[in-house]
């Protein structure tokens, strides 16, 4: 180790081109002028996350202002074309924007399955009319989407799904049940995998969109071990879906689903990254104390935390490299599976250690002091990271088959 103290390295400005440097300066100035101070504080709870949608009630005026300003600039979806509510930024410019937002501790103005999952799929597979209808409301945070994938008997083996869409000429009629539908009870629209051909497993699935307010849609939240209900059972009873809401080709929805899952996996994989607020080791130092040598006064826990943080630092660099590889057209298409696998496992490790760090204080479930058991609930919530969006075991199967090309995988 060098003995001189290394501050967090300055954001990578050294190799900016003149154009990029100008964009960086402009971006920084705009963010400083437009990001409300409240939106530069670490989030205190789930309420501080902005999901948008018809049912959304902002937790503060600043939250709404920040969303509206960013949306007006196209920066909730910076790389999308301007016609669809984006800013048409290059991927390098978007990287600069992300770096500058991180440098100022700006919160994400909008979390959205529409942005992370449906948007990329519509941009690739949607018709012009579909893009114009659905993308701008996503960018503005007006419509909140949920994903209808898993079913009671189609989990890891998703392609065995049975929810049926019957062709009625000008429309489909959908009947069946989904499960683990994230925030279905809060969502406005759903993108949904349905069976349109029972004689063909993978080539009998279609990708459709419909309004959750349609007659025949019912949601039932599922109480989890964390005490929260982020997932629902979703029931469809003769739901009418217009033909124009079919995305891609009939019976070829699996291609759309696979493409979209790649984005979902990257998103879940990045959880370990986004959640990294204050280094775990420093939180531990504050909670447990240091010994005379300035080391955490719990040597075995210190060793585990340090090993975790080394892995976390390396994984963050891998996320950065994955972006650079993608920009250089060098990324393996199955790389998101690796990121999803590792990010999920890393986040579970973080929260096991977090519980160890805070000991009895992290066990309280209801007190105001513990913000209603925030730590314990988050710890329990992370256990789903390696299940949702394809289990860790499924990701390892995908790596084996598509990257390592092992036989019979």
């Amino acid at each position: 180790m060098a003995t001189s103290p290394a501050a967090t390295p300055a954001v990578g400005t050294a190799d900016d081109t003149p154009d990029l440097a100008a964009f960086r300066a402009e971006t920084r100035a705009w963010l400083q002028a437009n990001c409300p101070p409240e939106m530069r504080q670490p989030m205190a709870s789930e309420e501080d996350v902005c999901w948008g949608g018809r049912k959304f009630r902002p937790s503060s005026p600043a939250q709404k202002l920040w969303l509206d300003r960013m949306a007006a600039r196209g920066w909730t979806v910076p790389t999308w074309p301007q016609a669809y509510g984006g800013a048409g930024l290059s991927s390098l410019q978007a990287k600069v924007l992300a770096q500058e937002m991180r440098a100022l501790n700006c919160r994400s103005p909008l979390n959205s399955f529409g942005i992370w999952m449906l948007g990329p799929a519509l941009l690739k597979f949607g018709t012009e009319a579909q893009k114009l209808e659905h993308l701008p409301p996503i960018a503005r945070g007006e419509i909140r989407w949920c994903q209808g994938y898993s079913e009671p008997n189609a989990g890891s083996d998703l392609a065995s799904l049975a929810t049926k869409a019957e062709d009625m000429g000008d429309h489909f009629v959908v009947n069946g049940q989904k499960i683990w539908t994230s925030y279905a009870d809060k969502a406005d629209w759903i993108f949904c995998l349905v069976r349109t051909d029972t004689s063909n497993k993978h080539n009998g699935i279609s990708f459709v969109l419909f309004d959750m307010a349609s007659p025949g849609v019912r949601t039932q939240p599922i109480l989890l071990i964390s005490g929260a209900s982020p997932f629902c059972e979703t029931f469809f009873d003769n739901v009418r879906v217009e033909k124009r809401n079919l995305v891609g080709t009939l019976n070829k929805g699996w291609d759309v689903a696979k493409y979209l899952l790649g984005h979902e996996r990257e998103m879940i994989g990045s959880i370990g990254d986004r959640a990294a607020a204050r280094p775990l080791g420093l939180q531990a130092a504050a909670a447990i104390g240091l010994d005379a040598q300035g080391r955490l006064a719990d040597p075995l826990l210190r060793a585990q935390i340090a090993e975790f943080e080394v892995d976390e630092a390396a994984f963050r660099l891998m996320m950065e490299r994955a972006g650079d590889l993608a920009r250089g057209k060098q990324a393996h298409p199955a790389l998101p599976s690796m990121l999803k696998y590792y990010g999920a496992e890393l986040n579970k490790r973080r929260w096991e250690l977090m519980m160890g760090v805070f000991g009895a204080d992290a066990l309280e479930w209801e007190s105001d002091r513990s913000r209603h058991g925030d730590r314990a609930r988050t710890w329990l919530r992370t256990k789903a990271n390696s299940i949702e969006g394809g289990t860790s075991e499924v990701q390892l199967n995908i790596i084996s088959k598509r990257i390592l090309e092992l036989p019979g995988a």
Partner: protein
Amino acid sequence: MALILTDDQAQLRDSARDFLSEQSPVSALRQLRDSHDADGFSRPLWARFAEMGYTGVLVPEAHGGLGLGHVEAGVVMDQIGHQLCASPLLASGIVATTALTLAGSTAQQAAWLPRLAAAQAIATLAIDEAGKHRPQQLATTARAEGAGWLLDGAKTLVLDGHVADLFIVAARVGEAGTGLFLVDAGAPGVAVERTVMVDAHNAARVRFQGVRLGADALLGTPETGAATLAATLDAGRCAAAAELLGLADEVFARTIDYIKQRKQFGKLIGEFQGLQHRAAVLYADLEISRAALLKAQQALDADIHTAGRAVAVAKARAGRTATTAVQEGVQMHGGMGMTDAFEIGFFMKRARVLQELWGDHHFHTDAFASHRGY
């Protein structure tokens, strides 16, 4: 800076791959070992290293080198790892060259750097004194005597010590100072004992007993010595990490090939999920460690004095990942992996040495935590 190789760097990697796989495959190391080669490396190959520019990769152009950076040096070390090529490149071309470039006087640089770049001399750092790497607990001392210095101490794990022309010796100066001293291998009071290592690479124990040095033997000053030493070690650690990941990638590729060919129970063993998932986890670890390595190399090039934390992450990850890779390599090759006739064991042995060199993953994980402030 993007965390991928530039076109030039990728070209250097490809040419190093072609050159080394042709000129120095693993069988060359076996040959050196079995013939009890007196040098422990091939001098003709070493001369070719100079022609290829490897020995001068970090030497400034003014002194006859290529004046490139640690990413380029790492790209070559990576390919050396693939072929387990034994050479003084790590000790001389990277570590000693870094120390001389960082802190050498004009005269010191002029005396040594052109010869190191041309492979006409070998220099090596003498730092460790016991089994574990503890660079901040030096027992070796240098006392001012007349206009010069008197050096006393004993060093171990001195890479290529028995073929070195120059030692760069880390010693305590006074109560708080650290000095790096240039010591001619032939100086009176220097005693070298070659200690061939488990991986058939060169190391030595070197004693310095009342070695008299001129005032011009000191590299930099006792005040800057600690910083120079730290930066020099970081360059070495990062290069060792590159060699580790190179050898780990090679073992992994060979192992994946093997489980696609070996049949048991009427199946290719690569069809068994018990192996598939372990291979997939290892793949993830290799890729993630590579990202950390590239970042550390870029950090060294940006500012070698503040790259410590990035290097600690890279060396810790590379040490752990390579250790897993060689163990899985031997296990998945089954009994064949245990035979000397098969090459996998050579990789395991080299990984053990590189893991230990200039701090194992415990050392660097601990350093990372201290750096973070806990």
